[in-house]
């Protein structure tokens, strides 16, 4: 009976949302960027007099100093135009990691969960896999402004390395306090960059470094610095969650 009601609700809501939204949305082929904020982000014309109409001056490989010059526009949006959202987002992750810690910590003891039998191949191969994974993770978050990837993806990859360590042997236990301190420092670093922007340029989270040549590793001003901090923070947070889940009551 309950399922029937839920099914009716499903169909009703699908009809309500679908038909209603269909009237206003520009879907698929009808979708254009014209006049949207996304277009101005791509053209890097947010701060010009007429963001939607002005001719584009953006060019890959050139040094024209426009709006941070990150080749990956998504990164420019995430850590540039909408950096404040990202600050909130890492805070949310920080809060969740704290919450998970609080829930598991409540029972007092902090021993790690013993695995039945660590995989032999895994424990042998982890020795040389580990540096590779960490290197790859670091590569992903240092090149976030040039290629797909960035702090969140790189951070997850590094957390996977910590998980590998847990899987490889029963002796390993992540340094919980150290991770928490690293989290705090990288989060505070992000905020201090924001406050430095406020002091130097008058706007919170504004860029205060030279923006360089689009496509070069040392470009895009403050963006790579922030993404490295986010990478560290996310890796510490997710590793912390891994170690909390691997702990035993």
């Amino acid at each position: 009976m309950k399922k029937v009601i839920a099914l009716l609700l499903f169909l009703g809501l699908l009809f309500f949302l679908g038909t209603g939204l269909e009237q206003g949305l520009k879907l698929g082929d009808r979708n254009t960027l014209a006049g949207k904020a996304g277009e101005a982000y791509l053209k890097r014309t947010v701060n010009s007099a007429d963001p939607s109409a002005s001719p584009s001056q953006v060019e890959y490989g050139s040094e024209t100093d426009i709006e941070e010059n990150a080749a990956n526009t998504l990164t420019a949006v995430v850590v540039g135009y909408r950096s404040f959202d990202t600050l909130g987002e890492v805070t949310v992750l920080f809060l969740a990691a704290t919450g998970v810690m609080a829930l598991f910590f409540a029972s007092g003891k902090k021993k790690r969960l013993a695995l039945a039998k660590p995989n032999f191949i895994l424990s042998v191969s982890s020795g040389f896999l580990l540096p590779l994974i960490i290197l790859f993770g670091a590569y992903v978050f240092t090149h976030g402004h040039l290629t797909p990837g960035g702090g969140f993806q790189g951070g997850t990859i590094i957390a996977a390395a910590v998980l590998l360590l847990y899987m490889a042997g029963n002796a390993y236990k992540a340094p919980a306090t150290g991770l928490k301190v690293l989290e705090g420092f990288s989060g505070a670093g992000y905020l201090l960059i924001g406050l430095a922007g406020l002091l130097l340029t008058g706007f919170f989270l504004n860029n205060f470094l030279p923006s360089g040549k689009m496509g070069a590793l040392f470009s895009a001003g403050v963006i790579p610095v922030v993404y490295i901090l986010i990478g560290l923070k996310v890796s510490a947070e997710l590793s912390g969650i891994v170690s909390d889940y691997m702990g035993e009551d």
Partner: protein
Amino acid sequence: MINPGLSSLFIFLVFVASLLAVEAKKAFRAVLFMSLAGLLTAVIFVLWKAPDVAMTEAAIGAGFTTFLFLMALNRIRGKEK
């Protein structure tokens, strides 16, 4: 222009996988179907030209989340024995 058939097929697959995940009797199977749906979602993101999001979804959405679910199931089962 990508073939609209391709993305709609993948969407359908995600739909089926999520239906199976919701309706599965065993929690373990539900987790597997959920992570299948997550991976297929990442494929759709690639088709719709969002490689960054696809990477995040594959690493965090499908990978890390699945780990969390499996650990949770493991700990709950460990108690029930």
